[in-house]
């Protein structure tokens, strides 16, 4: 993995490992200085083996989740990289024609090749230049009756084999020069795909007819021979040119860089840049520079670069370079390199339009058509970058879902140490009584915690690795594809990050717990009465103010302490040095010249400083801190409204509600003498308000605030945690009511009541630890319930397939080069009721004058015949009722009027939080808030891609709902128009490339699709049953949902472990109570039942809360989804959730059985004697 959460993995691993090492050195130093403390702290580990084991299990769960996420990312990355490397081999870059051809394959001539060769051969880092043809044609193996309608066919000139190779399966070099006109090589995949072997005869369907060829040898995958699941048939170039009737022509030139298959990619940037420079027209680049060098435009580009930094770093960097290089009077190499990449140029064109610079945008569009002589694609680098991006994305998704479990894991660590502290309170109190300082207690606890953390991080990393492999194997088994093999992988860097991150998180939690422990009241601890903490010393306002001001100028106050007061001289000098370095490292020049881990490390004091200031601010204001929070919340709300950010609005409003609750509590305290009652009421109001606010529908405030920008993916786990926390707060504030209700219902059963009364009262009395445990279960069940419910909502495609398929049963796609004449004549009318046709042409589109989006952007024009228009059953999201009352009438009028077009849902703005913004055509005419279906028809100007004419005006009268795109993952903004409009639009009839078949018997779709594929093999028809495709997609989607559910449910293991820890602890803590209960007549089975009920009760509360919150949140999401997918139904998946709830409760019972049994076996006298 190269990046995790956008941070380079190597630097992250070095930083985290450095942190762990620093912690280790500090701990070791302190331990050597006072070994007695180390011995006291660690002696409990071997003494209480079972307890130590339990603690380690609890601590390692966070690490397991981190390790599993990274392992899955590594595997995905490795698997995709493997496919790319297997396919591309030595091919690093591909040089092609300028891409101006409207239909069919673009060829370059031999002269073009010689020009490319002349340039490329001068470059030392290029070791291979291969002219070639690559096309796709139907191929069959008559002996095995197997066929592939669109197989890759390649032709090479063996004279240029240097830098490449062709080896057979025995590893011998083989040459295309030796192939006759009826002989071919095949790669390993052809063998797998259609069963062809050495000496087999295969048939290839060229545009001018079917030819048979003998397979001379099978070529190893990689490079010229393809691979990575893709079948390739290899010809001699001259033979292929003759067969295709394209003498002296080729489709591209492969370039190989020096070095091995993987490390050659490091020269790719440099070589691509040089070749692009050579193959870009300097004059046109100069013209583009003249447009961009305007200060205002440069600023627009730079601002966009900043905007894209988090979502699309590569594009952001390119824009920054263009902006900076545009200040020069002549185009620099960097400038030409970046501007010749069409993505960059089109982004700038879009930006100009958004900033009312349409004229300049139009000029750039005009120049862009004449900028490039040959396109240079950095194929391998792009593939490997894609592998990286997909792997990072998957790691991020897993980390986000995993973060719920990580949070729960950290809660467990905290809980473990809270319990450990309470178990040791007498021992620690005694230690304090005989002279140990607070810092010594922190050390004692930290030593013990560090050893647990180290073992847990190590074990967690290993288990995580194994778990990631397990999950990957399950996915491979679940997904329905033979094209992609998952190859398990776990890198050393990921292992290092998992270990260090797990160790660091655990260590920080240990320090916080240790600090909490060190606050214990000595007398209370020794007497073992109750968990209680030292009351704050009374500090005067004046001193609090001085402390606050000192915290503002911390380094100066440290110097003052050392010089004037002669206190903590060495410590303060060290801190002053660290703070000074922290300030210096923020100077960009210094930061840029230091390794990132050092920069991160040196910045740590600057993170601590503000926390120190906030701490003293809190001390200064004490309970009046509410006023500070109030001002902060108001500030945040104003900021959110001015910057239109959703996250700060939510945080600001939440803080405001907390302030309101605090004021209510203040008032209640004046009128209610019983502090418990006033706490209950104010807690209920605060948590209730917060809960209600956090669960409001997503766009509840939109009418007031306008469209706020969505936060990044990081926001959702935090939001979920806040929602759960407020619900648990509400529940625990009302624990007394809950206990009363339960007691009321249990009152008829006296024997049971005796047991349940104690079982319920104990957890409800320990609000903090019970609240923590409930939160653990609630958080995880919350996510699982959302998963389950959303999974069912997405089932509309299966329930109403016509909305996806348009009512057609089979889709047949063919190659432009192999058209079918009069398909109707060849169809079996008994099975096929009707066939509709479409043809796709790339266009540029913009809104007409007077509208907002008036610069051309990429789109598709899809010409469809009357059958398509009159029979399809897609639903519209919006339509203009002036043109028809329903879908049927709208299609009908569009079929008769060549100026009317119907758009797909991609033309609507989509500001989702993932990925860079979509740069294809978008309309400004539809407001997302429209809830009815009414649309006012609007004009768009459309023209063929690359043409410089003024385009044609068309009227958009309807927009199809997004569900119709479900099977088309690469769909972009498209317009459907009558086939009759093609002649006037492009001057010719475009070749049909899609056929939609409607059958008399839908159930026969799979069989008939296969027949059609065979029947039209010569045309390269790829036919699929659309319903089968929906089912397959659904199956794959279900597989991934199950995977995510499985992964998320790791958190339940944490919860169950917490229940186990709590029960063990409860048995130890309540030993005397057990004795008393036995003395007053409780049978041993009643004691066991009591503990089992207790753990089940806590689990049950967490689970129920999670189910309620998850359902509530799903409802909010459902409301959003129904805006997109009409007719989606909210179904509560009883079975799925029931299974989760059942397993969770059962697991909790199992986890608490052993300690409960132990409790029941304690002899009463022994229990009473125990202290």
């Amino acid at each position: 993995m190269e990046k995790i959460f956008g941070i380079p993995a190597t630097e992250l691993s070095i930083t985290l490992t450095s942190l762990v090492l620093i912690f280790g050195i500090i701990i070791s130093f302190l331990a050597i200085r006072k070994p007695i403390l180390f011995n006291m702290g660690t002696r409990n580990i071997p003494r209480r083996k079972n307890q130590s084991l339990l603690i380690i299990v609890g601590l390692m769960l966070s690490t397991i989740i981190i390790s599993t996420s990274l392992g899955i990312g590594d595997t995905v990355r490795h698997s995709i990289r493997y496919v790319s490397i297997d396919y591309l081999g030595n091919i690093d870059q591909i040089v092609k024609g300028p891409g101006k051809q409207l239909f069919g394959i673009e060829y370059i001539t031999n002269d073009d090749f010689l020009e490319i060769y002349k340039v490329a051969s001068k470059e030392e880092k290029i070791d291979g230049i291969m002219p070639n043809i690559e096309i796709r044609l139907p191929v069959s193996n008559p002996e095995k009756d197997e066929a592939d309608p669109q197989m890759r066919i390649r032709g090479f000139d063996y004279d240029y084999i240097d830098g490449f190779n062709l080896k057979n399966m025995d590893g011998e070099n083989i040459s295309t020069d030796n192939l006759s006109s009826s002989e071919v090589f095949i790669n390993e995949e052809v063998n797998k795909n259609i069963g062809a072997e050495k000496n087999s005869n295969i048939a290839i369907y060229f545009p001018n007819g079917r030819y048979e060829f003998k397979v001379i040898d099978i070529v190893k995958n990689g490079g010229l021979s393809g691979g990575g699941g893709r079948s390739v048939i290899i010809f001699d170039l001259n033979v292929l040119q003759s067969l295709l009737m394209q003498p002296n022509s080729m489709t591209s030139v492969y370039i190989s860089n020096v070095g091995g298959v993987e490390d050659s990619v490091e020269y790719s940037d440099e070589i691509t840049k040089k070749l692009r420079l050579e193959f870009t027209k300097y004059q046109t680049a100069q013209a583009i520079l003249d447009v961009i060098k305007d200060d205002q435009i440069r600023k627009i580009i730079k601002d966009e670069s900043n905007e894209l930094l988090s979502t699309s770093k590569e594009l952001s960097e390119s824009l920054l370079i263009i902006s900076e290089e545009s200040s020069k009077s002549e185009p620099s190499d960097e400038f030409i390199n970046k501007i010749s990449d069409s993505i960059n140029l089109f982004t700038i064109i879009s930006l100009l339009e958004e900033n009312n610079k349409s004229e300049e945008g139009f000029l750039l569009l005009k120049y862009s058509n004449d900028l490039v002589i040959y396109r240079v694609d950095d194929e391998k680098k792009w593939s490997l970058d894609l592998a990286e991006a997909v792997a990072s994305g998957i790691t991020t998704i897993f980390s986000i879902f995993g973060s719920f479990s990580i949070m729960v894991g950290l809660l467990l660590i905290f809980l473990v140490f809270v319990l450990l502290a309470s178990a040791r309170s007498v021992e620690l109190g005694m230690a304090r009584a005989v002279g140990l300082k607070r810092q010594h207690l922190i050390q004692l606890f930290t030593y013990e915690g560090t050893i647990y953390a180290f073992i847990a991080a190590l074990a967690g990393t290993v288990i995580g690795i194994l778990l990631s492999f397990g999950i990957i194997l399950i996915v491979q088994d679940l997904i329905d594809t033979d094209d992609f093999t998952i190859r398990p992988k776990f890198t050393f860097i990921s292992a290092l990050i998992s270990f260090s991150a797990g160790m660091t998180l655990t260590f920080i939690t240990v320090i916080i717990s240790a600090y909490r422990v060190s606050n214990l009241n000595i007398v209370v601890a020794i007497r073992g009465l109750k968990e209680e903490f030292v009351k704050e010393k009374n500090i005067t306002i004046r001193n609090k103010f001085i402390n606050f001001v000192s915290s503002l100028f911390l380094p100066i106050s440290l110097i003052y302490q050392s010089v004037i007061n002669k206190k903590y001289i060495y410590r303060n000098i060290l801190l002053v040095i660290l703070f000074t370095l922290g300030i210096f490292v923020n100077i960009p020049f210094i930061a840029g010249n230091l390794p990132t881990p050092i920069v991160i490390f040196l910045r740590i004091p600057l993170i601590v400083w503000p926390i120190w200031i906030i701490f003293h601010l809190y001390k200064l204001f004490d309970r009046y801190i509410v006023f500070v929070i109030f001002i902060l919340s108001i500030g945040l709300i104003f900021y959110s409204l001015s910057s239109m950010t959703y996250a700060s609005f939510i945080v600001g409003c939440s803080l405001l509600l907390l302030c309101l609750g605090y004021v209510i509590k203040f008032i209640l305290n004046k009128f209610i003498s019983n502090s418990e009652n006033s706490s209950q009421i104010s807690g209920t109001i605060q948590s209730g308000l917060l809960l209600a606010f956090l669960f409001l529908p997503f766009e509840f405030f939109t009418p007031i605030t306008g469209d706020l920008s969505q936060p990044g993916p990081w926001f959702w786990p935090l939001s979920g945690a806040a929602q759960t926390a407020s619900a648990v707060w509400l529940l625990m504030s009302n624990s007394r009511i809950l206990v009363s209700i339960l007691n009321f219902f249990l009152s008829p059963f006296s024997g049971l009541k005796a047991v349940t009364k104690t079982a319920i009262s104990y957890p409800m009395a320990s609000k903090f630890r019970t609240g923590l445990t409930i939160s653990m279960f609630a958080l995880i069940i919350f996510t699982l319930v959302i998963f389950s419910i959303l999974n069912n909502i997405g089932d509309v495609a299966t329930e109403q397939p016509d909305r996806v398929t348009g009512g057609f049963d089979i889709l047949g796609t063919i190659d432009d080069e192999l058209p079918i004449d009069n398909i109707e004549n060849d169809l079996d009318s008994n099975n096929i009721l009707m066939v509709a046709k479409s043809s796709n042409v790339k266009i540029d589109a913009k809104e007409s004058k007077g509208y907002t989006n008036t610069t051309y952007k990429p789109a598709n024009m899809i010409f469809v015949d009357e059958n398509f228009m009159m029979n399809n059953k897609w639903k519209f999201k919006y339509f203009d009722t002036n043109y028809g009352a329903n879908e049927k009438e709208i299609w009908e009028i569009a079929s008769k009027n060549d100026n009317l077009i119907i758009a797909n849902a991609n033309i609507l703005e989509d500001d989702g939080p993932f990925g860079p913004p979509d740069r294809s055509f978008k309309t400004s005419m539809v407001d997302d808030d429209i809830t009815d279906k009414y649309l006012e028809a609007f004009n768009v100007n459309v023209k063929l891609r690359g043409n410089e004419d003024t385009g044609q005006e068309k009227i958009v009268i309807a927009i199809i709902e997004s569900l119709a795109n479900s099977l088309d993952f690469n769909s972009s903004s498209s317009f459907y128009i009558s086939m009759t409009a093609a002649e006037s639009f492009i001057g010719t009839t475009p070749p049909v490339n899609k056929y939609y078949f409607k059958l008399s018997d839908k159930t026969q779709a799979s069989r008939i699709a296969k027949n059609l594929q065979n029947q039209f093999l010569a045309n390269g028809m790829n036919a699929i049953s659309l319903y089968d495709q929906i089912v397959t997609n659904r199956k794959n989607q279900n597989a991934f949902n199950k995977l995510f559910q499985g992964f998320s449910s790791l958190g339940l293991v944490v919860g169950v472990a917490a229940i186990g820890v709590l029960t063990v602890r409860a048995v130890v803590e309540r030993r005397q109570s057990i004795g008393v209960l036995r003395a007053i007549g409780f049978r041993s089975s009643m004691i066991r039942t009591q503990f089992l009920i207790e753990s089940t009760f806590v689990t049950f509360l967490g689970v129920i809360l999670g189910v309620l919150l998850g359902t509530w949140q799903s409802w909010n999401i459902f409301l959003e989804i129904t805006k997109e997918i009409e007719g989606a139904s909210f179904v509560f998946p009883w079975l799925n959730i029931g299974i989760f709830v059942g397993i969770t409760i059962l697991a909790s019972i199992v986890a608490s059985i052993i300690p409960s049994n132990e409790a029941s076996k304690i002899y009463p006298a022994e229990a009473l004697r125990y202290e």
Partner: protein
Amino acid sequence: MSEIVISTENLHKSYVSKDIEVHALKGVQLSIQKGEIIGVMGPSGCGKTTLLNCLSGLDSIDDGHISIQGKSLVDLNDDQLSEFRAKKMGFVFQTYNLLPVLTAVENVELPLLVSGYSSKEARKKSIETLKVVGLEQWKHHLPGQLSGGQSQRVTLARALVNDPAIIWADEPTGNLDSTNEKEIMDLLIHLNKINNQTFVIVTHSDYVGSRTNRIIKMHDGEIVD
């Protein structure tokens, strides 16, 4: 002749701690009559609490025989012992040992609920018993909100609520000041007179000893006087 409610024969009990065997009771023989208030006294570690635990069935014995109201404790299994304790015995401990999460009345009603009383009856009887020990107005307080003397009264109420034949008290005034000690003893003697229940009190206090009917002195696991 009065009825004998507690009798033992040749009672032996030993503990093994770190390979060292401690003989806590060495052939103890005693008999206690109904309505007696017995004080068990002796130096620390002489076996007083062990004797009380064995007599009440809280601890097992190695050898010998214990008879409570004519029933041999040795013949009862764990569940039968629990039931026997619930119906026939009450306990008072030095550290009160109230369940901290239950209110005073809930603590008191617990033995009744175990014995099968309905919730309503149990609550009614518990409040009446709290009235007897003078704590009716404190019934809804948690143990943490009560003083030491009050807590011990609640413990006493819990021990009495089931009308047991025998009440075992292990250092019932050990954590109390002299005023509270006197009040608790007055209450015990008053209840003994009303209900004719048998009290076995393990104590170090001479004052408590002076208020009992009979003192059993122990030394090194044996009754010496």
